[in-house]
């Protein structure tokens, strides 16, 4: 597949010659050969590879279609739909800036997300657990839920000493909201029987929260963490509108200002990979923590 895609890239002429076509074809060929080597290798086949096989087969087809529709025939119009080699060109030519942006974004994102997740979790537990907290916090969540991040900017500006902390606040807020909602709904829907048993055995409320409500709600909490991570990426663009010097959201906006779609897509791809990596981490943690679920639910 990859080899075919590589050959397609290399030998089917394009509408306009683009500088990175050769490189793209070369990379595709290389991946194809690498996969072939690994697949045919005498040593034991990697499980991951086998699991990914259908995606590995589908991706080059996608590339071929993309190339076909853009550079090879011009079916899709520029500038909205740049050819894959144009996006690749951004990576080869602009990688330093992209890497810097990605790093800057991560440095902004991770503390914000961590704070948001921690606070969201605590708040969610409190809301799910305590009727009083629920009474006061639920209407607030209801009112606050729909407010766009930009609406918070003035307040964030005023309340925080530095732009950095203001940006962190925005990210924490965006990621904390889904964590809080899902934690609270998880805690609130723990089977009553578990509480009965633990209370009977002498559990105080602290124990009930920590050892009953929270573990039982964890599957839901992880969904919240996942959605919060997504939300934190989305709000990155807003958070990076205010006074940063590098960052993916910033890069994205800048590229949009120049209608540089190849750069936009490159930044989005980096974002998607970063996000996917973080999600992968999160899922790995979840799969460990929630191993007990395996035998109970469908998978």
């Amino acid at each position: 597949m990859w080899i075919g895609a590589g050959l397609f890239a290399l030998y089917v002429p394009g509408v306009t010659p683009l500088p990175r076509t050769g490189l793209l074809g070369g990379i595709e060929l290389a991946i194809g050969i690498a996969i072939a080597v690994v697949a045919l290798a005498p040593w034991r086949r990697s499980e991951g590879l086998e699991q990914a096989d259908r995606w590995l087969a589908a991706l080059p087809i996608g590339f071929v279609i993309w190339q076909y529709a853009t550079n090879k025939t011009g079916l899709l119009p520029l500038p909205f739909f740049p050819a894959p080699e144009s996006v690749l060109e951004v990576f080869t030519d602009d990688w330093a800036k992209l890497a810097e942006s990605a790093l800057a974004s991560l440095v902004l994102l991770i503390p914000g997300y961590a704070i948001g997740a921690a606070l969201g979790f605590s708040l969610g537990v409190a809301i799910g657990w305590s009727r009083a907290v629920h009474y006061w916090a639920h209407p607030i969540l209801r009112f606050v839920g729909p407010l766009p991040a930009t609406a918070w900017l003035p307040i964030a500006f005023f309340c925080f000493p530095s732009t950095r902390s203001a940006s962190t606040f925005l990210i924490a807020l965006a990621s904390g909201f889904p964590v809080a909602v899902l934690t609270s709904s998880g805690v609130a829907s723990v089977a009553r029987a578990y509480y009965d048993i633990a209370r009977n055995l002498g559990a105080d409320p602290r124990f009930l929260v920590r050892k009953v409500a929270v573990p039982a709600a964890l599957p839901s909490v992880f969904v919240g963490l996942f959605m919060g991570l997504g939300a934190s990426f989305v709000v990155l663009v807003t958070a990076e509108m205010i006074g940063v010097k590098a960052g993916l959201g910033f890069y994205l906006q800048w590229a949009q200002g120049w209608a540089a779609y190849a750069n936009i897509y490159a930044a989005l791809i980096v974002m998607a990979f970063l996000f996917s990596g973080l999600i992968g981490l999160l899922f790995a943690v979840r799969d460990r923590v929630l191993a007990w679920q395996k035998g109970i639910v469908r998978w």
Partner: protein
Amino acid sequence: MVSATLDNETRPGLSVQISRVSHAYRTGAEPVDVIDNVTFGVDPGEFVALLGPSGCGKSTLLRLVAGLDQPSEGKVGTDMVRVTGPDPARLLVFQDPTLFPWRTVRQNIALGLEARGVAGDHRAATDEALALVGLEAFADALPHELSGGMAQRAALARVLINHPRLLLLDEPFGKLDALTRMTLQGELLRLWQQGGFTTMLVTHDVEEALLLAQRVIVFGPRPASVVFEAEVDLPYPRHRDDPGFIALRRDILIALGHGEEL
């Protein structure tokens, strides 16, 4: 080793006072009356068996004594103190095992020790409890890997490890084969004789009630009210072919509406 934990611990059993208790559930449109003006007492250290038709309100009564629910009317007390909430001195083995699915069997059994903040390593205590119910080999299994009977035994161990002063058992041996059941009945009897705790046992097995209890109380159909009560004045260990045993069995079966079978 053994004596330090499950055995030999003699704290006096709690007495139980149930006076004019009525209870109704109000979840649906109309309230469901479940217990109707029940009054009886249990002496400290006594072993009482409760019998009654399915759905008559036995489990509900145990929940009231455990303090998990409050009766609609009347008073439930232990040692002359009104029961207002759960207390680890009064422990209920629920009809459904309901183990915590995210904890291993051992961790489930250690739940009460953890909940009460009992310090130290619970390994010895849990090992002993596991051995008592014959689950040594499944200490690290998760609940969904247990069979029905094994889960029931784990639930029993989860309570016994805590030395309650009042033990409330809701059909604890219902899913066990005859041999396992007999072994556990024997163990329960031994612990009760040594530990001096009060026991209230809900069971559907009349012979089980007669083999274990000092007194048998039979409820009528819902809403539960006491329809029969008898002292079982037989020495332990008891035998099924003892004439007193057989006579009591007949009386109870009749009280349960079971005439023709005899």
